[in-house]
């Protein structure tokens, strides 16, 4: 195996003290960037590019890559602890992660997230070594119609996010889609529902909405009650390891999350939030107790966290092999590569083999560093929750406002977050689940773009979705999911007594 020989050389380079240091710095910085809401991995990586001018290229890229996957993990921390998703991919983690924290099990949630992320990231990196080239050729077969049908599968999973009432979930799903229509039409360039407000031209931004829905909404809900009991003491908050039976349950979820995240990472143009949402919905479909999702069960954290890290590592494959960046953060990484004189694409492996394999090896090491770094820290993070909630609440609010502002240096985003906070509060009071709206808000623009691209290529004919085999396959999958979900939902709407906490 020639690849493994190269990989060993790569390990030798990546394990040099200097490169190890940069990987560690990257992991720490990335975690911090992920923890700060607003400042996502893309902006964080971009801000640090000038630093890399002064470094040797391999070290520079090792550090930037570490920031990238470090931030993926960091976003989890705030989602679990205070219900504030730091970036899009960790929204789903709020659903069960925060519930676990409220039951005093923040440590276990963060622990399983770290383990799942490690596993997903490592396996995806193995995939990078073994199957990189043939798989990216396959990914290129994805044109707009294939995307659209794949996203339709994602949309059909909205039903999997429904709580007690399928009708309420569909209402919220539709609301998210309506929100996603706001902004300049992606094809004709005409403004829609913008009311001549310039910041609305780009549409309703995702991060302020979820910070409002989840973070601010939660504060308002809690403000009604006696603040003492919001977060349970929990026997051993500092024990970060999940219970043995929880690990056993999680193994399958982690495996599924890895597979899904890896697959989606290969296809340039999806994003990690799609990966984490889809894996959560799939878990619910596979679960024997789907009604328990959203009440703080460990599979609800393990699967999406694994999926988003597997996604993050797999997304490097199309970058390295074809020079195609699949997400904004990867695009920035690509910029850094080019600026350091390394052109991503098929020749990268032959012309700069030493560099590529050192970076790949550093991905394994980086995932391990993250695990080592985070498992002991989990206890410390969880201790944050010992702060009395009436004080913590104020800090969360300030934290959210700064985060929302720092997204685009815009007060409009702060206002948007606060309004969505009120909306989130109302929806919670009325028992409408928030997750479907968030999922459709992510999927809406992607689906619209791919739908209209396809129709523009086919000059208006819908046949394009049915005559291409991959697209047809996904359409059938979506139809199957919808039919089975409707089937399952029927009796459960009658079983009113099935008690389930809403999202």
């Amino acid at each position, binding site marked *: 195996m020639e690849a493994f020989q190269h990989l060993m050389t790569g390990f030798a380079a990546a394990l040099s003290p200097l490169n190890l240091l940069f990987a560690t710095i990257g992991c720490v910085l990335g975690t911090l960037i992920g923890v700060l809401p607003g400042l996502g991995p893309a902006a964080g990586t971009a801000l640090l590019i000038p630093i890399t001018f002064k470094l040797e290229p391999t070290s520079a890229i090792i550090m930037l890559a570490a920031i990238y996957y470090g931030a993926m993990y960091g976003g989890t921390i705030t989602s679990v602890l205070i219900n504030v998703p730091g970036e899009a991919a960790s929204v789903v983690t709020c659903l069960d992660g925060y519930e676990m924290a409220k039951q005093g099990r923040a440590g276990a949630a963060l622990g399983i997230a770290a383990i799942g992320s490690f596993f997903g990231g490592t396996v995806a990196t193995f995939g990078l070594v073994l199957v990189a080239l043939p798989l990216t050729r396959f990914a290129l077969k994805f044109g707009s119609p294939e995307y659209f049908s794949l996203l339709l599968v994602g949309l059909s999973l909205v039903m999997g996010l429904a709580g007690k009432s399928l009708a309420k979930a569909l209402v919220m799903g539709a609301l998210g889609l309506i929100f996603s229509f706001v902004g300049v039409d992606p094809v004709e360039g005409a403004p829609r529902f913008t009311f001549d407000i310039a910041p609305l031209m780009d549409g309703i931004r995702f991060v302020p909405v979820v910070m409002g829905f989840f973070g601010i909404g939660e504060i308002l809900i809690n403000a009604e009650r006696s603040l003492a009991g919001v977060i349970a003491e929990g026997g051993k908050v500092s024990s970060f390891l999940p219970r043995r039976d929880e690990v056993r349950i999680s193994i399958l979820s982690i495996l599924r999350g890895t597979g899904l995240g890896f697959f989606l990472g290969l296809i340039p143009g999806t994003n990690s939030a799609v990966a984490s949402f889809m894996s959560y919905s799939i878990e619910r479909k596979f679960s024997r107790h789907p009604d328990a999702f959203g009440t703080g069960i460990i599979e609800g954290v393990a699967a999406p966290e694994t999926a988003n890290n597997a996604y993050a590592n797999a997304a490097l494959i199309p970058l390295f092999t074809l020079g195609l960046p699949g997400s904004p953060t990867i*695009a920035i990484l690509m910029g850094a590569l080019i600026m350091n004189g390394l052109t991503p694409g098929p020749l990268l492996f032959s012309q700069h083999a030493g560099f590529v394999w050192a970076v790949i090896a550093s991905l394994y090491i980086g995932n391990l560093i993250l695990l080592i770094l985070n498992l002991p820290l989990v206890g410390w993070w969880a201790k944050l929750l010992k702060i009395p909630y009436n004080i913590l609440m104020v800090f969360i609010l300030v934290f959210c406002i700064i985060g929302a502002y720092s997204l685009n240096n815009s007060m409009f985003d702060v206002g948007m977050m606060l309004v969505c906070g009120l909306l989130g509060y109302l929806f919670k009071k009325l028992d409408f689940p928030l997750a479907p709206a968030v999922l459709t808000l992510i999927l809406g623009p992607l689906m619209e773009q791919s739908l209209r*691209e396809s129709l523009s290529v086919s000059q208006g004919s819908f046949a394009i979705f049915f005559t291409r085999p991959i697209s047809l396959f996904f359409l059938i999958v979506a139809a199957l999911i919808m039919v089975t979900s409707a089937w399952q939902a029927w009796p459960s709407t009658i079983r009113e007594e099935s008690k389930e906490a809403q999202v």
Partner: protein
Amino acid sequence: MKRTSIACLVLGLILAGGLFLTQALAADKPKDYPTKPVTIQIGFGAGGSSDVGVRVLAESLKKIIGQPVLAENKPGAGSQVMLTDFKNNAKPDGYTMALINVPQIQTIVFDASSKPLFSMKDFQPVANHVQDPGAILVRKESKYNTLEDLINDAKARPGQVTASTTGIGSDDHLAVLDVERRAKVKFNIVHLKDTPTALTRALGGHTDANFDNIGGFLPSVNSGLARILAVMMEQRYSDLPNVPTFKERGYDLVSSSTRGYVFPAGTPMPIVKYMEQSIKKAMDDPEHIDRMKKAGLTLKFMGIEEFGKFLEGQNERAKQLIELYRK
């Protein structure tokens, strides 16, 4: 004691002399400017090619003006959010500059449906920085080997050959329209989200011709995944000596994504001139040249006058082409 005070005096004199000397050397430096950091506003997100260009320039510019140069991203609506904010809030005091993307700014200003709250008169040109020439890319498996292959096929099958742009009103969109009117052909124009998407679709064979800028094409061309049929420049591109220009092939067509800096209208001319000269010096900095080359960004300095004239020419071209897609 006495010796120390003499030493102090001498040192002070030397320092004062030095100060005088530097003042004298920078003869055209306006009095009391700059005394605090200068901010450059960017209408696009961190990490894009507009952003990278500004951040690389800022590194060299700060050495020349002796003050930090900050890059501030205000993304949204193809820079319309930033420009609106710049017009309303930036003071004409020389401490806030904006990066403008040409011809994108024209397609905002002259397209009534974008409802612009500013006009070209609100901006004082300072200097141009980057010019990324337009080009047409096809994947290596494509049946088009020359520009003529593409044009002839588009003639034979009107409205069937798909040409991708990176969005309505982008320089690529204007370029497609310009090719259409000059070669008398009709493409099936598909507007894609951004450069990576357009490249992915072209490499996968889902679109026939990818209209975009050379900077984003170089990686795929250098690694042999794709080729460029022609560039929309006055002369051939130095790194692609075998690729013809449209002009050589008989089409009077020059198109690019051009990025330069403006102050708010009404900024004192000495400050504008000082900044123009400082940007010129920064662009001559070997470190700057090297980094921009690696980033695939082609430098093109234009001073106050030349940049102003260039903008006026672009105003006319944009008006004509907007007419073609807004009628």
